[in-house]
């Protein structure tokens, strides 16, 4: 912020240690590009969380199914915004879809995004909610009633046969949705992983590390949203549901931490030309965000807490367990944000000449400033609030469990 203020008066060159190519002194990708993979990861993770119910039939997670789907949708609606605001010419953004250059991974964004939103998320939500839309459109008046009537798309058939079809379609879309969610976030990882010019990014493990960090962040977000929703509605927390989420969170975190450890073990063992600068990067410029934020607070502490809860769950009272899950989920969300920072900002802090470091001067107000990034991080929560108000009423006329039960009874 100081630099931002002083820049108003005179130009402050970035502080450079060693030698960096002149064009690399100012960072090109800023906090907006940190926020972009973070939001996309939350979309994919929340969807995977929901598909644990649909595809893998984890009964304990039923109460959080719809909330995860809505979380995924709220964040998906905001996912392209950071990219859009970051563009030098946002008015030309449609060119990515109109004239995509197929050898560029970034050109696929529009298609992957459209596929995920249209063919997976909206469709699955529609099939899942169709029965409720019909019920609500009959009961609710006013603007909300009109909205529900529009959302039925004119289909008011709630016969057993139609509901069974809804359920089957939901399952099929969920099945397609899992690889799609992997594609959505794996592709974001590939954007970085495909840059061979940058040894911090150009890494074959990058897409899969992104996928697993997405899953842990998505589940953590669902844990927090579930706790928050129940707290706001003064409902009792379903500790079985929380335990189940904690279990899956722990498993995903183990895989995520192993992959990241493998990445470092490989880098240190192979000890290629870039290893000296990367070690200096980790121990210097990224010390607080990588070693303290991502590794210790974001990974090690939640691993110990969640691992301990897996072993000694019976000896910990539900109230304490709930607090520990809250703490772990918050730490993981912070750790994954730190991970995105380390990848995006860290990858630009050192020179491709491997001879020095530059510094990142964070803007305050500009269109790449951190106020904008915070706004973009808050926006999905506001959207989620609206979605919950509209589609997750306290007394839901029909829950998914009941629909499922009705269908199975009918079958």
């Amino acid at each position, binding site marked *: 912020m100081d630099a931002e203020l002083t820049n108003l008066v005179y130009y402050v060159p*970035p502080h450079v240690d060693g*030698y960096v190519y*002149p*064009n690399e002194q100012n960072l090109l990708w800023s906090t907006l590009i940190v926020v972009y993979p973070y939001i996309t990861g939350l979309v994919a993770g929340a969807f995977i969380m929901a598909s644990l119910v649909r595809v893998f039939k984890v009964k304990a997670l039923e109460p959080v199914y719809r909330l995860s789907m809505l979380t995924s949708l709220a964040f998906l609606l905001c996912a392209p915004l950071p990219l859009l605001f970051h563009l030098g010419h946002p008015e030309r953004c449609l060119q990515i879809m109109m004239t*995509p250059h197929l050898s*560029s991974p970034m050109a696929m964004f529009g298609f992957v995004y459209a596929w995920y939103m249209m063919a997976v998320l909206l469709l699955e939500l529609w099939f899942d909610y169709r029965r409720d839309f019909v019920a609500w459109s009959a009961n609710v008046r006013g603007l909300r009633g009109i909205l529900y009537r529009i959302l039925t798309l004119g289909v008011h058939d709630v016969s057993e046969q139609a509901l069974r079809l809804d359920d089957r379609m939901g399952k099929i879309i969920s099945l397609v949705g899992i690889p799609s969610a992997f594609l959505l976030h794996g592709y974001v990882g590939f954007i970085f992983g495909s840059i061979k*010019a940058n040894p911090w990014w150009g890494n074959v493990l990058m897409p899969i590390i992104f996928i697993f960090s997405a899953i842990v962040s998505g589940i953590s977000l669902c844990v927090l949203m579930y706790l928050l929703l129940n707290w706001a509605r003064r409902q009792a927390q379903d500790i079985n549901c929380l335990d189940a989420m904690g279990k899956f969170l722990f498993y995903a975190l183990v895989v995520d931490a192993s992959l990241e450890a493998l990445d470092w073990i490989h880098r240190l063992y192979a000890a290629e030309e870039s290893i000296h600068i990367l070690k200096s990067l980790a121990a210097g410029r990224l010390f607080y965000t990588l070693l303290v934020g991502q590794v210790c607070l974001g990974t090690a502490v939640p691993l110990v807490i969640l691992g301990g809860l897996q072993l000694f769950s019976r000896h910990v009272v539900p109230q304490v367990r709930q607090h520990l899950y809250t703490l772990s989920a918050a730490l993981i969300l912070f750790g994954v944000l730190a991970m995105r920072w380390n990848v995006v900002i860290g990858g630009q802090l050192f020179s491709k000449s491997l001879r020095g470091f530059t510094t990142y001067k964070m803007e305050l107000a500009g269109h790449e400033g951190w106020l904008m990034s915070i706004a973009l991080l808050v926006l999905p929560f506001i959207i989620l609030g609206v979605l919950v108000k509209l589609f997750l009423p306290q007394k839901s006329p029909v829950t998914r469990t009941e629909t499922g039960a009705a269908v199975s009874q009918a079958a």
Partner: protein
Amino acid sequence: MPCAPPTQRGTMIGKGYTRRKSLVALAGAAAGFLVMAPARKARAAVQKLFTSTGAPKGYDPTQHKWLMAINIERCIGCGLCVEACKKENHVPPQPTYFRTWIERYIIKKPRPGQAAVQGETVVDSPNGGAGGFPPCEIPREEILKAFYVPKLCNLCEHSPCTQSCPVGATFDTPDGAVLVDPKYCIGCGFCIQACPYGCRYFNPYTRTADKCSLCYHRITRGLRPACVEVCPAEARLFGDLKNMGPDDPIAKLVRTNKLHTLKPHLGTEPRVLYAGLDKEVR
């Protein structure tokens, strides 16, 4: 044309002039007629594209293959090339935007008792080398050797920047230049990240990616790039692979020197060749 008598017509049919073939030929002609207009438009668009690159009308990019060779032994670090490039191509004046720049390498002697052929390497490029370099702060007796290395777009055969552009605003021309269409670039910066040589920058005025164009507006008119033109030491040589005689300065350089490219392990196959490149240069 007089109509053929019935018998002759019969023989013609016998030779293969069937109704089907006639119809196919007719459809072909119609299709050709329909395709001609879009083809003309496409050709005009391509021509317009080349004119937008700064090339004059009538310039045939398929008849050339440009390359650049740099003789490191000859560079004196005067920085005229950097200044000429900035003026010729309206490169932003700030010291963080360069289409070409010069790096100064100072390799120190090994410390006493240090079992190494050389000591620490110190690299700098104050203001990209424009206006020359200030006197070196390292005492003369500590220096093993020093040299200057001009840098510019490496004219990669497999350019990662072109590969990564999501809309095709960056493109390889048939004559070997890598250009940016500032009217089409969306300014995502992916190409800037993808360039291993740090040769691209984000132009704060056009809000698009920008880079060395090999002075395309000059070379397509038979002139040399500005940096080559002003180099007083002939450290930068410019040539055309498709029209290169044995007396061409580049041909001579190739015969008499060991040549190297920057970061060959990345497989980009640059067409900027360096004579006398030290292993310290990245």
